[in-house]
């Protein structure tokens, strides 16, 4: 069996390639001409490198994509922009998704796995304590969110459109915040990082995190498990910490974190005031803090990964404590460590 992986040299992609090779799957990696392939080679290891075929092409090149897909049965579309302006993110995520999917449809592939984000849900309308699962609604006003989330919502929409047009079977996975060695553990879900200061927003909210190796193993299954075409899976780990708990873990582990706390009741009034000033001053300060965004990101919700466990036969094998330790120490996972087989 052969599969194609986009974004294979990235943080998540290279671990996915390794897992696929461990399963004996041949992998064609579509990488940018300027990408450094060495980290991928190191992650995969010399023993498994034989089954890896690296092709350099821009994802906007439909012909090159189609050519690379010859003989493949599944595409894992991991490549996506992570930062920058909205238009930059659209150009690196939404537009290429259409191109790669059309190429996949032309090549008659059996399945297209899109790596989306847990951020796409319209959590602003949910109530504190609600359960967020795959049935929760997608954000109806994604342009009011941050550029990354907006691009992921529209990337999914584009993928669904092409899937409907072409009949290409689509599986969507929505990982939470991916942590791992070199990435640290403090994210925007905890609060605002203002220089050296972490402004903790609330604190009782559960952090929807997933460790990179756990996430990669679930994504692998999304391409290989039977009968999951057309399905969506939320990917988060078990035993997730709260924002307050995570900061405490960091401090106990000897991390120098300076934080101040904004109580949950003050977040919305604060965001409202900031947003008013942003509009009154005609943008003298950037409109990064709005009531809509704060209601979407710092709300205490409950999360479930049951569907992924059941349908993908997946288990997040690296516990959160171990994930925390590895992420904080910057220790690259040894790829065999304590991860069991799925």
């Amino acid at each position, binding site marked *: 069996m052969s599969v194609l992986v986009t974004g294979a040299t990235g943080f998540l992609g290279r671990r996915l390639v390794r897992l696929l090779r461990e399963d004996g799957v041949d992998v064609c990696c579509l990488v940018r001409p300027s990408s450094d392939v060495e980290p991928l080679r190191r992650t995969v290891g010399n023993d498994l490198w034989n089954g890896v075929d690296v092709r350099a092409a821009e994802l906007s090149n439909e012909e090159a994509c189609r050519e690379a897909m010859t003989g493949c049965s599944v595409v894992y579309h991991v490549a996506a922009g992570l930062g920058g302006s909205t*238009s*930059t993110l659209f150009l690196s995520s939404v537009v290429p998704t259409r191109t790669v999917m059309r190429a996949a449809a032309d090549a008659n592939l059996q399945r297209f796995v899109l790596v989306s984000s847990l951020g796409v849900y319209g959590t602003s309308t949910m109530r504190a304590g609600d359960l967020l699962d795959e049935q929760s609604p997608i954000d109806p006003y994604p342009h009011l969110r941050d550029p990354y989330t907006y691009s992921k919502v529209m990337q999914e929409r584009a993928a669904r459109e092409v899937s409907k047009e072409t009949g290409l079977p689509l599986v969507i996975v929505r990982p939470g915040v991916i942590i791992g060695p070199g990435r640290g553990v403090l994210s925007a879900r905890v609060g605002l990082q203002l220089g050296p200061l972490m402004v903790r927003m609330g604190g009782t909210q559960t952090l929807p995190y997933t460790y990179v190796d756990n996430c990669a193993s679930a994504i692998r299954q999304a391409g290989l498990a039977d009968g999951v075409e057309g399905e969506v899976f939320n990917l988060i780990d078990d035993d997730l910490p709260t924002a307050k708990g995570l900061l405490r873990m960091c401090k106990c582990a000897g991390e120098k974190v300076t934080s101040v706390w904004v109580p949950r009741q003050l977040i919305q009034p604060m965001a409202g005031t900031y947003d008013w000033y942003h509009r009154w001053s*005609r943008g003298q300060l950037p409109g990064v803090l709005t009531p809509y965004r704060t209601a979407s990101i710092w709300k205490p919700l409950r999360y479930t990964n049951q569907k992924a466990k059941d349908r993908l036969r997946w288990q997040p094998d690296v516990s959160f404590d171990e994930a925390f330790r590895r992420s904080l120490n910057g220790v690259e996972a040894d790829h065999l460590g304590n991860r069991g087989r799925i």
Partner: protein
Amino acid sequence: MSSRTPNLRIALIGCGQIADAHLQEIRKIDCAELVAVCDVHQDLADQAAARFGVPRADSDLSAMLAEAKPDVVHVTTPAHTHCELATRLLVSGVHVYVEKPLTVDFSEAESLLETVTRTGKSLCLGHDQLFDPIWLRCRELVDAGVIGEVSHVESVLGYPLSGQFGRQVTGNPDHWVRRLPGGLFQNTISHPLYRITEYMQDTQPRVDAHWYAAGTATFPTEMVAHLRGKTVTGSLFFSTRIQPQRISRVYGPKGGLEVDFDAQTIRVIRQSRLPGAFGKIEMPWRHWREGASNLRHNLWRFLKSDIHYFAGMRTLFELYYRSILDGSSPPIAYDEMLRVTRVMDTMFRHCRVRTGAKRLAALSGASPRLSDRKANSQSEVDDLDEVISETEQVS
């Protein structure tokens, strides 16, 4: 009778990064009404329309023109498409605002301005930093004679490639910026250059320019240029190895003015009036007072919510729209557009030929002298001679 200012219907084509700035500033102008955005990728047009409340998003320019019926179209597409798109728009009967650079070369610029004359429509070019509040303040000081007649202007642009746009350009050998005749510089050098040419009115100043690739870069990333006009000289330094910065220094016989666009500050460069060691006390004292004055000024502007990165752009838009409504000349003169484009052409040609001469000299084992006739390619040497004679004629 209503005294309300008539609205101009504004559309934009090319919904990339700089389009955000355009749409944000156009929305602040009373006489402007955003009616449509257009991009070759419908997704990009849609996101711009959604975020800036524009009623129409198209991927087909003809449909956008027919349906939205704009009076003015802003062109914020890649540089190599400016001439063709702007020509098409002018011919279709709309006024056009083009982001810098105007075109990829002088012949395209001439052809575009002929179309302006033929169609009777007006054209504006995005030389917006000429209308930045800090540059306007500098101009006031120059006009007041604080430094005397301007004799030299220096411009520095720090442009690290670690930024999002820089990373795209570096990461993709086929990026459109890499294919421009002036490469990375063509897309970015207009701003520091027109700050020099504002005070150097020569049509063809003598140019001596050099570019090179820094570190591991595979394309030219650094440029140094010297310009010599009849009464004013200029120097331009572009680097990807220094922090982001936009600084100009304007010198005259009575002193100089250092203008920092990012800090929005002006510093007067002047000799101490006190002798010897006393001067070493007076100068820091003067710098301290200037710092306090800049701080007061910016604090006051902050309180008035008057500090905006694209303030110059908004002023330029307003002046351009006003000129359309009044039937007066647009704020950036057509001669100025041609002049800057011609100087850029000369700079890039000079750089290319110098690089070629150096390469040829290396191949033939000789020093890269301009008169080196051992070069294998006679055409490149001829090209270099042409540049030299061109600049010598002017001087």
